[in-house]
Structure formats: structure tokens, C-alpha cells
């Protein structure tokens, strides 16, 4: 694999990874705002 291709694939993975993590964190905050105490405890909290 030439260096240029390797860099492009690395950058794509970094971007996709960062986006997926950001979405997961945002989703978690959303759930946190709407979760009831009973659900939280039932889920093992």
C-alpha cells in the first residue's frame, strides 16, 4: 500500500471513529435527560 493511500484510509477511519463517538456521546446525553430513576436503576444503575 503506498503512503498516500495509507494516509487517506487512516484519515477516513479517524473521521468515522470521531463521528461515531460524538453521536454515541450525544445520544447518551439525550438519554440521560429523559431517563426515569426507575429505568436507570432497573438497567443496573
Amino acid at each position, binding site marked *: 500500500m503506498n503512503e498516500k493511500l495509507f494516509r487517506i484510509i487512516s484519515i477516513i*477511519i479517524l473521521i468515522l*471513529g470521531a463521528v461515531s*463517538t460524538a453521536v*454515541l456521546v450525544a445520544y447518551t446525553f439525550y438519554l440521560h435527560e429523559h431517563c426515569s430513576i*426507575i429505568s436507570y*436503576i432497573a438497567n443496573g444503575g
Partner: protein
Amino acid sequence: MRLFQQLSTLFLLIMCFVGFDISVYNLFTKRYINNTSEQMQAKSIELDKYLPFDDDSEVAETDTDFKLTENLPVVDGAAALYPVFSGFVNAVYPKESVIFDGENFTPESSLQYTNTLKAYKSVVDGGADIIFCAEPSDEQLQYAEEQGVELEFIPIGREAFVFIVNNENPVNNLTVEQIRGIYSGKYKNWSQVGGDNTIIDPVQRIEGSGSQSVMMSFMNGIQMKKNLFGFMGRAVGFSFRYYVSEIVENGRVKMLSVNGVYPDKENISSEKYPITVDFYAVYRKDNSNPNVKLLVEWILSDDGQEIIEKSGYVPIE
């Protein structure tokens, strides 16, 4: 060899993100997934389950000669008490006075449901004539005072204030002192109160909600603290007995005994359970609708108290 290094680097990069996301999901995300119905999530209760004048409703019924036909007081209140005040409407109001659009009651309906926070504002502002709630927060009392409104609080029934944990938590009982110690930050590990070596996560509700106001009153001036690392441990929360055991009915949580007494109906009415609270009919003292006081008088009568009893709560003496 170079290709192998490049592929290994890419694989490692992917695994870093995957590993991090899985950790975030397991530590945080999955704990916050609400496992109740959409209606429960939006309104804290399934309104149509206790709808008045509905054949499939689970609302409590009683035979009574007391009927209101005009000047109907608009009633509203807390989620935990919705089955009760829906039962009052079912027994006393004409059927056409309640208009449910499938999601909530229309503004013309004499039965409203906005939950504690909005109900207190509504009764002060004159939107609701009577609300059915637990004791108010200091902010709610202050709002009424700022508006120059005096509220009348009539106790109409009793309920246990309960503490809940996950079923897998080995603790089944706490003393009042231990509960205050947990919420004040004195006890931070379940092993300090008879459990296993796990961090305690003392969760609270939003300020102004009925159960949060009762909890603040129960703490008797002691400031409540959150545990920053609580997410790594096991939680304890609070609510009202009927809401936990009958309305939500989540089999994965259990109610704790307090001072060795379990919060069942018998122990509430005999006052053996140490944390029982009154719930109230609340109305403006200057409300000129004569049916407001007549309705409250009926609620305190045998017929009204029967609704409270049949709804699963404890009647007032």
C-alpha cells in the same frame, strides 16, 4: 512487511474507536435507556390506562349520589395521583366534560394532566381549580406568594415514600439515618450500610417534582450531595410506593424496608412504616367556584375515600 505494519496500524486504529465506544455504551449509554412505553417516557404515566368513562379503563369506581353538572372545577395533578383524580372525575363528572385526544386532554376538558411542576403553576395562575399533589417545593410556595395567591392544602390520603434499588443489590433494608447519610455523602459505599463493596449512586429527581420536594423535606435541612463516581456503582432512588409497585411495575427494581419495616399498605395505614406522606387537594383560597369546596368535601367522605382506597392508596383518617 511494510504492508503488514500499515494494516496492523489501521486495524489498531479501528479497534481503539470500537473499544472506546463499547466502553462508553456499557458504562453510560445502556444505563440511561428508558425501558418504559413511549407514553410513560413522555408523561410519566399511561393516561389511557386510567381514563374515566372508558370500559377498558382500570380507574377505580364507586356508587355515589353526589354529581356535578355545571361549574365543573378543572382538576389536574401529579402522575402518581392521576389514577385517583381520574377516579374522582369518573364518579362525579358528566362524561362529556372529559375530552381526550389520544395523547392528552384538550384545553376544554375538565380533567387535565400536566404533572406536579406545571400543575402547581396552573392552580396559582387559575388554569386549574384543584390540583392533587404531594407537598410543594419552596419555589412553588414562593411563586404563589409572588403572585399574591394563598393556597389551601387539604390532606386527602396517605402514601409511603419509598427507596428503590436494583433487584441484584443484596441490601433489603436501610435505616432512616443510613438513608440521610447516603444522600448527604457520609456513606459512599454499599459495604458501609450492609451491602457489598460497591460505590453508592444516590440519584435525585428534578427540583419541583413531587418526590424531590418530599425528599428534601425528609432530609430535614441536610444538604443532598451527588456522588461524582456514582456511575461506577449501584444506585438508590426514591419515589412513591404506588407509582413504583403498580403504575411502573418494573420487575428489576425492589423497594427497601426502612427501619426493618416494608412499605406495604398495612404498614402505611398502621404508621409502622416510618416515611409516609399526605397528599393534598390544593386550591386557591379565593376560588369563587362553590363546587371546589363541595368536591373536596365529597373526596373526604366515605365515597371519595373509597376511590382512594380502591386506587391503591391509603385513605386519610
